[in-house]
Each structure stands twice: as structure tokens, then as C-alpha cells.
């Protein structure tokens, strides 16, 4: 994170998301790094990896923008996590998994 950005954009948030394995964390890191923040959102998003933990840092000039960025990030993160849970090599071919996941997905992002 560049130093100067913190001076002009004081609102910050860091999210740490643990995964089952470093491989899964790396997959989520690569999947979620692709999308750039919309230019007019004035939010800086930085992803990094600490072993099996995905670390996401946000900084924005307005709290409102910070919230918007984090909300949409969580939607993508949850979808990616659910996909890994359902189709990852460890738990592949388990039919019962789906029902559990579908539930968490719908309730998780109503906020």
C-alpha cells in the first residue's frame, strides 16, 4: 500500500479470510485479483497472501465508498468460496454439500 494514499484516503479496512489449504487461498487470491475497482469508486483494493490466509486491504476517501467496495467484494468472495467447497478436489462428487452451501449463500449477503 503506497504511503501517500493513506494520507489522503484515511478510511481503511483489512479483511483476513482463512482457507482450508494454502492452495485454495491461492486460487481465491488469483480469482479475486482479476477485477479492478470501478474507477469512479475511489477505492483502492490490495490483495495479498499469507500462507493459507487471504488478506484484502481497502482504503477509500469516504466510508460510504468503502462499504460499497467491501459489500461487492464479499459477494464475489462467498461465491468463490462456495465453488471451492463444492468442486474442490477434497470434497468433489458430494451431492449433499450443495444444499448447505445454497443456504449460506442466500442468507450471507442480505446485509
Amino acid at each position, binding site marked *: 500500500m503506497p504511503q501517500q494514499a493513506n494520507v489522503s484516503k484515511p478510511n481503511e479496512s483489512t479483511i483476513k479470510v482463512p482457507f482450508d489449504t494454502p492452495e485454495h487461498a491461492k*486460487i*481465491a487470491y*488469483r*480469482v*479475486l*485479483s*482479476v*477485477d*479492478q475497482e470501478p474507477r469512479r469508486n475511489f477505492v483502492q483494493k490490495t490483495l495479498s497472501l499469507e500462507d493459507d490466509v487471504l488478506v484484502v486491504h481497502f482504503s477509500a476517501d469516504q466510508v460510504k465508498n468503502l462499504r460499497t467496495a467491501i459489500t461487492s467484494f464479499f*459477494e*464475489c468472495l*462467498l*461465491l*468463490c468460496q*462456495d*465453488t*471451492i467447497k*463444492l*468442486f*474442490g*478436489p477434497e470434497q*468433489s462428487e458430494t*451431492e449433499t454439500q*450443495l444444499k448447505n*452451501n*445454497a443456504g449460506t*449463500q*442466500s442468507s450471507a*449477503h442480505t446485509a
Partner: protein
Amino acid sequence: MVCALGIEGSANKIGVGIINDGKVLANVRRTYITPPGEGFLPKETAKHHREAILALVQASLKEAQLKPSDLDVICYTKGPGMAPPLLVGAIVARTLSLLWKKPLLGVNHCIGHIEMGRLITGAQNPIVLYVSGGNTQVIAYSNKRYRIFGETIDIAVGNCLDRFARIIKLSNDPSPGYNIEQLAKQGQHYIKLPYVVKGMDVSFSGILSHIEELAEPGKRRNKRKKQQDEPEPDYSQADLCYSLQETIFAMLVEITERAMAHCESNEVLIVGGVGCNERLQEMMRIMCEERNGKLFAIDERYCIDNGLMIAHAGAEMFSAGTQMPLEDAFVTQRYRTDEVLVNWRQD
């Protein structure tokens, strides 16, 4: 032999399809249907897709009786379309690509429609009329590109139909266009509407405003002072549906015929959601017969947005050697048909 899984989610349908060497193995789809009078909004549509997509991927693999390891490539819709629903497909496609260690390809939605239409009908080099809720284009292939000969200069033809259905509160189930088509069969009187063809291009927004006025006289009373004792309109909703279809489809047939004459082609292929309208197909067929041409049309399984068309177009790209690094696997709301280099066609 390419086995491809395709994920489509650019508008209110979310679909997953699997194709193996041109053979359809699975094609599953769910549609986000809103109450009458309401359209679908990006955020709500994305939510619907998020809740449906993983079950669809599972269902497609089950239907195709394949394991992930049997696939060669994962394809998703890169654009054009609404960004939030597009992103749902892209996130899942990227994750699957990394989990299963398969290459990933982003496919242009319009190219998906064209290639699917060509595969199903066997049309070799047709003039393509691509008509849906978000796009209206007359397309001809030339020199490794699908070139846009004519298009709408404002809203898409399907958007015009959808919004008219909303005005008269028709159901969105199974689709507004289908319900307009059914109601139009009861139409008795043709009401004159503006006919807006500008060279090779068409325009629908003025027609929509005009018919809105006819459907709900008095709604815009402050704009034009109307007399209180205005007589009841002597036309029904069915007449309006019938007249709207006749007018806008005639416009589409006109520009398609001109493209045929220009390219000296005698084949027409209709793709896109509006393409399953049987009245449009009938009008186009009459025009084609008069020119000794041939019409190719497909049914709603392949006409309406589906994952299979993305899988098929992706498989064509894959076999031509196209590669896409993960960093380029983003989505884009604007992605014109002629931006794609058609490296899989030899003519």
C-alpha cells in the same frame, strides 16, 4: 475433439452447457422472472444467478455424465451485458478453471449466438439477424470478422417488446415477448405506428413512446392537454400487440433483405431471444421465399441465452488455438461483435 463447459449469465438467464465435438451433452438454464410491470435490475439479477449457478454446474455434469477431468476448456461470457450478472459467471468460471486445472476462455455473447445458430441449422455463410432484449444487429461474415451491417440506434427490439409488456402489465413468465406474441394472435385491427428505418439502422424508442401513449391515454395529460370527455379508444391491447409486432418485425425484415442483396447471400439465420417469435420467422420466411433464399431458425432451447452456445463458441476458439491468461478473464459491459477475430473459420 474438444469438450467444453460454458457458463452464460449476461442478462436474466443463467445457463450452463456442455458440448463435446459439436455434440450437445447438457444445456441447463434458469430464468430470473420479475412480477408483471417490473423489469430485472442488475443487483437482483446477480443475486438470483449466485443462488442458482452452482446447482446448474452440477446438473450439467450429471446430465452429460462427465467428470471435471473429462473437460478440455471452461468458457464464460465476457460481454456484452450487465456487469453484476456477468461477474457471477466469470467468478465461478475462473475458480473452476483453477480448481480443475483447465484453460479458461472468455466468449463474446453475440458470437456465441451466431456460432450456435450455425451449428444447429448447418447454415454455411448466412446473413445473421441477431435480435434479443439487449441487442439488435444484422451481421454478415467477411474476412475473419462478423461485421455489423445494421443495428439499432437506441434500444433493442426485445427491450421495446419487454417494456411494452410492462406498460400493459403482461406477465414476464415465461417471457414478456412470448406473451405479447400470444396476445397478438387475437389482434383484429392494425393501428398505424411510426416506421423507423434509417439506412441500414433501426430505431425503436420513438415507437415505444408512441404506443405507450396509445396504451395509456391520459397518463401524460400534462404534456398534451387532452379533453376530459375523450372517447374510449376503439382498439384493444391485442390490437396494440399485433400492430407493434407487425411494424417492428417489418423493419427488421427490410434491413435483413437489404443486407442479403448487398452481400448476394441467399441464407438468413435468426438468433437471439426474439428469434423464437414465430411471427418474425414467418415474415422472414416469406421474404426469403420471394428472393429464392432460405431461412434458418432455431427453437427456444438454443435461441434464448444459454450456456451451450458459450461452450460451443469457446470450443471453436480453443481448437483454433486461442488462449487467454487469467488476468484477462474480466468482464466488460461493452464488447462489440466485430471486435472478435474469427480465427476458426477458414472462408
